[in-house]
């Protein structure tokens, strides 16, 4: 009997464990709204509970290769960026959107009012709320500067030269150290935040994009889609986008070393930005496919497995009959901002 | 003085191979006056060019004054020509942008220099009867006058050998005989003359006479 009881208990434990593992790789039930900026000049709005899709138009379309990247013209036909959004920071009910032409626009989610806050930089990649909550930091991929933008005054407060073509910024928990990703140099620069001086760098080695700190401030995640080949002349689009390894690189914040490289090449995904759930268990990954869609993927922060992929461009474009004329017909998105706990009305 | 040993020169004329000079051998003594007669296209002018170092034979050797000229590097051959050989061409061979006096002095641009050269050039022009044409340009001269300037020029660098191709072609009889007298005088002074001509009376005045036919050379009686 005892033996039988033991076997039943063992089976129950095994069943529970299996169930737990299975549950861990199931899509979580999330609550919130994600806003993902795209080259089309609008933000994709995703209800994280229903995965329904909407959009907010900010500006007209523009390609990433238009204008300047790291001081170089890649697209000879388009010397100036046309438009397009690349990142948005959500402060209260205001989205502060950084554009590919270096302007900042504010969109109020309640009033739906769009305000042009003027020329701040040259060509923005990331739009990241700063540690004190007073500023947004826009990273410029044309000149490698980080622009401090004061939310209250709605004007530029500082300009910090960092690299050649920067995209993302993140801070340690104490706010004393900042990390800035330089796409073309394939490095994450480490800055003493008080003096704004570079004190080191973490080499990733390929073309990288955005960086995000996990809520525990123990891991720094860096998207490394690798869709450009970094040459002496600067970034050159590879003949087949993402021909190399497409990865999410995880850095240990304490010892500032790479601890993992999560390869998503086989998933045909080219991750550009990340958003951790407040509990740090899940990561929303905005990914390009360089096909006819871009994807929002949900990744388990522990197992690094993708548990869900949602179309966030094609679904809408198909319905509206939109035909993309830039970026070789591929809808390209980038920066993600999430309003956790509030679904769109 | 001049020695040709089994010299041959062929040209391609379309698909045809023309033997302009075919196994020619000859010996010319210093101070000799040699005439070569023959029909047009018989190879006379080519023979002169081979002797003067203007075109390289396919085979054989050309020796002037003990120097195998075709063994010299090109610059040395040019210097050799400038010092030892001069030409009187069949055509009016003056540089149109230079005066008669300058044309006579032209060979000195590539070698010989000295204070008396201009005076010597004047005396040469006087010798050929063009004392009053020293500053004239070739376009102002008749064909015969141009030929006389070319003859005067042939002596400016006091060459050991003068190779002349129809030298009196454009001249009237009187001038022709004057020129021949000059040639004879210079020949007597030691200059070797090899003259190619159609003119049988001119050829008859030579000490050694040759006939050229289909690239082959033979002594004329």
């Amino acid at each position, binding site marked *: 009997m005892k033996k039988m009881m033991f076997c039943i208990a063992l089976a129950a434990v095994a069943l529970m464990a299996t169930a737990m593992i299975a549950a861990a790789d199931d899509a979580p039930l999330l609550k919130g709204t994600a806003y993902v900026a795209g080259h089309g000049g609008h933000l994709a709005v995703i209800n994280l509970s229903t995965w329904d899709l909407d959009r907010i138009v900010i500006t007209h379309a523009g390609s990433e290769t238009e204008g300047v990247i790291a001081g170089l013209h890649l697209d000879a036909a388009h010397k100036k960026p046309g438009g397009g959004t690349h990142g948005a920071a959500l402060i209260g009910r205001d989205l502060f959107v950084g554009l590919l032409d270096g302007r900042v626009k504010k969109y109020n989610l309640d009033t739906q009012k769009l305000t042009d806050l003027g020329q701040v930089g040259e060509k923005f990649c990331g739009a990241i709320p700063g540690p004190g909550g007073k500023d947004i930091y826009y990273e410029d991929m044309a000149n490698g500067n980080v622009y401090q933008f004061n939310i209250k005054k709605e004007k530029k407060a500082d300009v910090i030269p960092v690299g050649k073509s920067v995209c993302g910024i993140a801070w340690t928990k104490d706010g004393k150290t900042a990390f800035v990703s330089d796409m073309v140099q394939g490095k994450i620069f480490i800055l003493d935040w008080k003096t704004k001086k570079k004190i080191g760098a973490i080499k990733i080695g390929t073309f990288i994009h955005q960086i995000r700190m996990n809520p525990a401030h123990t891991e720094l995640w860096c998207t490394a889609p690798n869709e450009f080949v970094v040459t002496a002349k600067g970034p050159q689009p590879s003949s087949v986008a993402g021909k190399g390894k497409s990865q999410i690189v995880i850095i240990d914040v304490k010892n500032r070393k790479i601890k993992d490289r999560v390869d998503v090449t086989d998933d045909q995904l080219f991750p550009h930005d990340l958003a951790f759930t407040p509990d740090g268990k899940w990561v929303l990954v905005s990914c390009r496919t360089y096909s006819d869609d871009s994807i929002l993927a949900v990744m388990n922060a522990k197992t690094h497995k993708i548990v869900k992929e949602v179309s966030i461009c094609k679904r809408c474009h198909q319905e509206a009959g939109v035909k993309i004329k830039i970026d070789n017909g591929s809808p390209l998105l980038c920066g993600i901002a999430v309003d956790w706990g509030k679904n769109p009305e | 003085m001049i020695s040709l040993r089994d010299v041959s020169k062929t040209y391609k004329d379309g698909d045809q191979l023309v033997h302009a000079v075919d196994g020619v051998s000859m010996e010319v003594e210093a101070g000799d006056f040699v005439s070569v007669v023959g029909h047009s296209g018989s190879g006379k002018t080519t023979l002169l*060019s081979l002797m*003067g170092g203007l075109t390289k034979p396919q085979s054989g050797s050309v020796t002037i004054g003990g120097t195998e000229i075709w063994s010299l590097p090109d610059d040395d051959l040019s210097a050799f020509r400038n010092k030892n050989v001069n030409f009187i061409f069949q055509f009016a061979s003056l540089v149109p942008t230079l005066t008669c006096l300058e044309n006579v002095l032209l060979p000195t641009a*590539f070698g010989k220099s000295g204070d008396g050269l201009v005076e010597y050039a004047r005396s040469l022009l006087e010798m050929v009867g063009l004392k009053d044409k020293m500053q004239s340009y070739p376009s102002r001269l008749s064909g015969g006058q141009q030929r006389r300037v070319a003859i005067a020029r042939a002596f400016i660098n006091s060459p050991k050998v003068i190779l002349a191709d129809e030298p009196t072609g454009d001249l009237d009889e009187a001038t022709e005989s004057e020129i021949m007298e000059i040639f004879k005088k210079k020949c007597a002074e030691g200059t070797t003359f090899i003259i190619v001509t159609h003119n049988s009376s001119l050829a008859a005045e030579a000490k050694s006479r040759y006939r050229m036919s289909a690239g082959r050379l033979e002594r004329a009686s």
Partner: protein
Amino acid sequence: MKKLGLNHLAVRNIRRKLFRTVSIVLSVAAVSGTLFSATLVIYSVRRSIAVGAGRLGADVLVVPAQDESKARDALISGQPSEYYMPSKVLDEVRQVEGVEKATPQVFIKSSPLSCCGVSNVLLIGFDPSTDFSVTPWLTDFSGKNFNNNDIIAGDEVPTMTGRTLKFYGQEFNVVGTLARTGMRYLDNSAFITLNAAYKMAAQSGTKALKKVNVTPDEISTVLVKVKDGYTPQRVAVKISFAVDGVKAIASSDVISTVKDQLSKLFAYLLTVGGIVWVMALLLIGVVFSMIVNERQREIGLLRAMGATKGFMFRLLITEAAMLTSAGGILGVAGGGIVVYSFKNLLVKELSVPYLWPSPGLIIALLVGCIVVSTITGIAAALYPASISARMEPYEAIRKGE
């Protein structure tokens, strides 16, 4: 009579076909003229800006936000203009991170109604106790302290040291004049102390026909020197952010504005110059190939008379070099005359300051353009010259017949 030589033959050959010679010379002149005049203008404007910016001595200029474009225009085109902001801005600017020194200035346009003074001059009042912009020149000029009755005049102000100048009824002793900068903002200005400026304004109501409306709690600009380790651009952003109602302009940004204005013109001129250069290169190449073809018999003749291959090569190269250097000289002369004659129009149309480069640089430019022209000729004639040199004498004579 001189010995016949390569140069003599080359000159005679050049004279042979006058039309052809003139065509080559003119086409090269067009290239060198464009190159020379465009570079001269660019250098002149850059020098003027550099001299002006150096004279300004400030890394950053702080002006009222609403008058930013007026201030930029005043700096670049030098039109006297007045704008004011509260003098407390100075203290606020001094508090901003990265600011090492800050000094105020006040601008007053001279009265157009003046009967016995000088009109259309910008009077700049500065504070000798904090100044780092004007004072360094004063010691150069007078060697003594600058007092409230003294004035220093820019190059375009019609006066000289030892004379007096009268503005708004106030008489000033001219203690020095400034060397020309090309920036009218400085050349067309006269410098007095801040106190003298306020006093003059206060007394203008009774002493002059026109009253100056500026009070001691107003200033026009704050000149800033930045600390080591800070870029002027960064400090300018910080000042614009920290101090309400002002705009801070990095001096180097003013220079880049002018550079931007010029770059389009320069690019246009260079494109035209480049097209003409390629055409000239082709023209010279084709012409010299024709020349070699035409002169085959002569080439054979000269070779028969002892000319070496090297001589034949050098002869053609010398001809090309002579033609193109003549074109180069004609071009720089023409370009220089055009720039000199139309300088004022250029300055007006482009709204840029202008200061002739140093004689050394002008000479270097002249030589450079002529050298480029000559090299163009040599490059174009290289191939035809090598063909000419390679010809076998007898073949050349035969083909030329």
